[in-house]
């Protein structure tokens, strides 16, 4: 992007799409590939959507002993990504006053959060037995339920996010700009509350091993910060236009350090938590963790999560001055593999039913009465639909509405980095 284009961006980044025809032309081919990928995903995923409405939840592997599966786990992950990325961003900009290139990422980051929110709502909405009754939570709320709080907070968060996006998109000065800043401050406790309550939805359940206690809400917060930093780092490295600027490299390295710090904190917290659960040797408590570590899907934990999602990224980030590419690869690996964490939090404790209540699973035979779970094709297809839908929302915002990073801060404040 030329200097002249940057100047135009400073005035109104959304108003100069036509002038960018040159750069768009250069990037038209990759854009077409992205659109094609999104549309192919949407078409393939639509089969899952059709199955969901034509056959209800009958073609899933969900059951009465394992009522929550990949859609709930993915919803939790999307909450971490959506809220975590904005939480870290707002903390860095407004609390720790990072005067780097990072503030220019606001628009793109809000856009990605909105896209992730769309994915999350699709999955959790269609996970309901009666998706068209989802609004009942708003009309007939039972405030004693943490799920009510989670949904209400998520709705409020969505409103705040849309307001911030609108303000960031059009308003550059004046009262509304101040409102945007205050909304950012407001989003901090709101985001923390949403993530912690999402964890508490599990934490208050004493019926399933491992979940009950205050650890899970805190793990959720740490996980959101880690996943959010990963997403922020990836987006900054991938989308920031001035890739040769000193501010870019320095910001990427600082984000890499932050990512490394959260990775180590998360690793230590999870290790300590696991040891505490295993140490007393209580079978019901330990069984769920045993399933995660040594069960049929051990490779999800050891290879996918610990190997590719923790050890490799830590190795890439540990050097004194890692290259931007290494930081980028570490962040991508983390984002892709971190889905294993909510999957391992949500599913194994439900599979331990036979340890908690021996004989219950075999007492009666019927569909949905088994203590095993692996997502079926229809579950994967609907997940692909949600991912493709969110991806297309992001593409639309990024390519059509031109919600791209703007470099107002580079050169002006970048020297302070």
């Amino acid at each position, binding site marked *: 992007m030329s200097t002249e284009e940057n100047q135009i961006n400073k005035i109104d980044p959304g108003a100069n799409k036509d002038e960018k025809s040159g750069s768009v032309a250069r990037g038209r081919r990759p854009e077409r590939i992205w659109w094609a990928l999104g549309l192919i995903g949407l078409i393939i995923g639509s089969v899952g959507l059709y199955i969901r409405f034509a056959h209800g939840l009958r073609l899933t592997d969900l059951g*009465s002993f394992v*009522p*929550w599966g990949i859609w709930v786990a993915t919803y939790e992950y999307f909450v971490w990504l959506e809220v975590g990325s904005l939480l870290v961003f707002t903390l860095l900009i407004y609390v720790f006053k990072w005067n780097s290139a990072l503030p220019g990422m606001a628009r793109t980051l809000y856009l990605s959060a909105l896209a992730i929110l769309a994915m999350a709502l699709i999955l959790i909405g269609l996970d309901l037995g*009666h998706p068209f*009754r989802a609004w009942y939570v708003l009309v007939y709320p*039972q405030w004693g339920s943490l799920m009510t709080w989670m949904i209400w907070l998520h709705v409020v968060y969505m409103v705040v996010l849309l307001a911030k996006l609108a303000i960031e998109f059009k308003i550059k000065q004046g009262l509304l700009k101040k409102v945007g800043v205050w909304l950012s401050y407001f989003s901090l406790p709101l985001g923390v509350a949403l993530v912690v309550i999402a964890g508490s939805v599990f934490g208050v359940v004493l*019926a399933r091993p491992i979940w009950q206690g205050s650890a899970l809400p805190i793990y959720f917060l740490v996980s959101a910060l880690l996943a959010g930093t990963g997403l922020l780092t990836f987006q900054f490295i991938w989308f920031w236009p001035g890739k040769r600027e000193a501010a870019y490299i320095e910001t990427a390295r600082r984000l890499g350090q932050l990512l490394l710090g959260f990775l180590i904190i998360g690793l230590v917290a999870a290790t300590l938590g696991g040891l505490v659960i295993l140490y007393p040797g209580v079978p019901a408590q330990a069984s769920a963790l045993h399933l995660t570590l040594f069960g049929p899907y051990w490779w999800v934990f050891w290879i996918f999560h610990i190997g590719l999602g923790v050890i490799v990224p830590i190795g890439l980030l540990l050097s004194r001055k890692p290259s931007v590419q290494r930081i980028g690869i570490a962040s991508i690996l983390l984002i892709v593999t971190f889905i294993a964490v909510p999957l391992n939090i949500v599913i194994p404790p439900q599979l331990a039913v036979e340890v908690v209540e021996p004989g219950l699973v075999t007492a009666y035979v019927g569909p949905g009465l088994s203590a095993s779970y692996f997502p079926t094709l229809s579950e994967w297809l609907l997940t692909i639909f949600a991912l493709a839908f969110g991806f297309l929302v992001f593409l639309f915002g990024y390519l059509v509405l031109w919600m791209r990073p703007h470099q107002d801060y580079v050169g002006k404040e970048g020297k302070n980095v």
Partner: protein
Amino acid sequence: MKKPDEALAIGLEQISHPFEKSKLLDSAVLGSAGEASNLSVNETLKAVEKQLEDMPTAGRVPNPLIRMKAELRRALEKPVDQRKWIMVIDLRKCVGCHACTIACAIENKLPPGVVYRQVVEEEIGKYPNVAMRFVPRPCLQCANPPCVSVCPVGATKIRPDGVVDMNYRRCIGCRYCMIACPYNSRYFDFGFSQFDDIPSDTGAMLGKEGAGVIEKLPAFEYGRERQRQREGSPIGNVRKCHFCLHRLEAGQLPACVATCIGHATLFGDANDPESLVSELIARPNVMRLREELGTEPQVYYLV
């Protein structure tokens, strides 16, 4: 009006004790029940019950079903908030016949994958010292139910009489209550049919269309006539045992209680100090499942 023979047959079905059956037969044969034979079924049964109640108790074993039914009617005369329904299951008497499971499924027209009262079987010991233990598992109707507080829309509530009920029209199907239930007593209605894998009717064979008529019969859970329809409630809802509230309101014992061949399942009002269940739960050999959780189950086990 039923024919006398039909009324007698129904009367015999309702009375399980051989002595009482013989008394009824005697009275029918000897003609003393001739008047009763011209009565309606309910009137016949009432007459029989009256005869049984009037009989001298010395030398005969009282039928707990008759006692519980009388107690049930007595409880129904009180306001609902003064009743406290509880169930007592005598594990020493349960033979694992699963009649209660079947009766419950038929009474409530339960689809595949939904069960309100399964019987957990457990083999104890090693050969040659081996025994079987049967633990019937209805919803325990906890006084402090973890499933109620987690519902985001208040679709499940604890009634004044202690039964935890479901509002199918309110339930959104999030299944959080199933997650929160420490006893796995809640089941999700995915919409499966008993006849999914059965071929269609042919001239020589009754297929899914003919046999499936039974699934089209309405259920009367929570006192409301409801027919399972495609993707409509209760499909997509969480379902659970409700102590056959619709039967209780009609003065009938829950299906599992009425069907139990060994009188192992007993039912009544814990607020009535003279009820059978009140007597039983005051014994030292009574226990409840996972009491350490503080859920205060209203299903007691005699061991």
